[in-house]
């Protein structure tokens, strides 16, 4: 023990050198898994009805944060849309062209149609481009903070351009 302390002192205390090799001599594995630990946390705290500290309501929002939650939001939204479409296909009596003609006959203005196309294309485009940004992170690139912001702005720009382009088709 004293030997260990002297070793530490000699190497310069304030360095952040990892000396875990020495310390693991006395490492004891816990009997629970990380998942069990997390469950224990939630059951205990919900049982005691403890309030959650404010986090998203007080932390200053940043562009990367907004893009991240939008990625999740568009994902959930698009998935719900696809599921709703699939359910409709199973439940509704008539065929797709029938319902499409129904919408045609309502004769909406061209601007409204263009806007609808834009509104449909936007989440698809955003989720796709931000998805590529995620895949780039997954191969380990682009984690520096300026790069994170830059790629984020590129995603926003591409999304707007692609949505306009698709709405014009």
């Amino acid at each position, binding site marked *: *023990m*004293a030997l*260990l*302390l002297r070793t*530490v*002192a000699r190497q*310069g*205390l*304030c*360095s*952040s050198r*990892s*000396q*875990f090799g020495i*310390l*693991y001599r*006395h*490492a*004891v*594995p*816990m009997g629970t*898994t*990380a998942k069990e*630990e*997390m*469950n224990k946390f*939630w*059951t205990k705290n*919900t049982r005691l009805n403890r309030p959650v500290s404010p986090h998203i309501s007080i932390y200053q929002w940043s562009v990367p944060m907004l893009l991240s939650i939008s990625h*999740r939001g568009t*994902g*959930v939204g*698009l*998935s719900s849309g*696809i*599921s709703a*479409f*699939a*359910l*409709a*296909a*199973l439940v509704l009596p008539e*065929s*797709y*062209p029938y319902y*499409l003609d129904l*919408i*045609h006959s309502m004769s909406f203005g061209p601007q409204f*149609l263009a806007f609808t*196309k834009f509104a449909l294309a936007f989440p698809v485009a955003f989720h*796709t481009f931000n*998805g*590529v940004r*995620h*895949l780039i992170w*997954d191969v380990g690139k682009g984690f520096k903070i300026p790069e994170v912001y830059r790629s984020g702005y590129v995603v926003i720009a591409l999304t707007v351009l692609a949505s306009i382009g698709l709405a014009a*088709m």
Partner: protein
Amino acid sequence: MAALVRLSSVCHRGVSPLLFRSSSLIRPLAIQKKDQDYPYLISAKIHATPSNYAGSGSKAASLHWTGERILSIALLGMAPAAYYFPGPAVDYSLAAALTLHGHWGLGQVLTDYVHGDFKIKMANAGLFVLSTITFAGLCYFNYHDVGICKAVALLWSK
């Protein structure tokens, strides 16, 4: 003893906190002789996979992660395929890829926000039912109706 106190006050960050927990700051010197008897007093608690866990699905999470990425890339490729080669092959591939991508994606959302063994189980069961219905509906649409590619083309032709 004084040296130890000086050490701890000067540098709290640099040395591993395992060793200098506030409760055991002074103790190490005092127990140096009894170190062999009570090693756990200064031991680290770590999450190590016990050897008896080995093999039982230990690579499952990692493989799932890789599968998610591969599926994403495949789905990316299906977009130009749907535009340039519309037809039943792309229709059914899209149905499968979209459903699975959505299923795995929503699964991650549930993992993040749903807590408690029973609620997790219920939420995942519900998701499974939803994904099954989604895939069934898309396949039905592909078979009995115009198909996904044609549907998008028709919708856009307005």
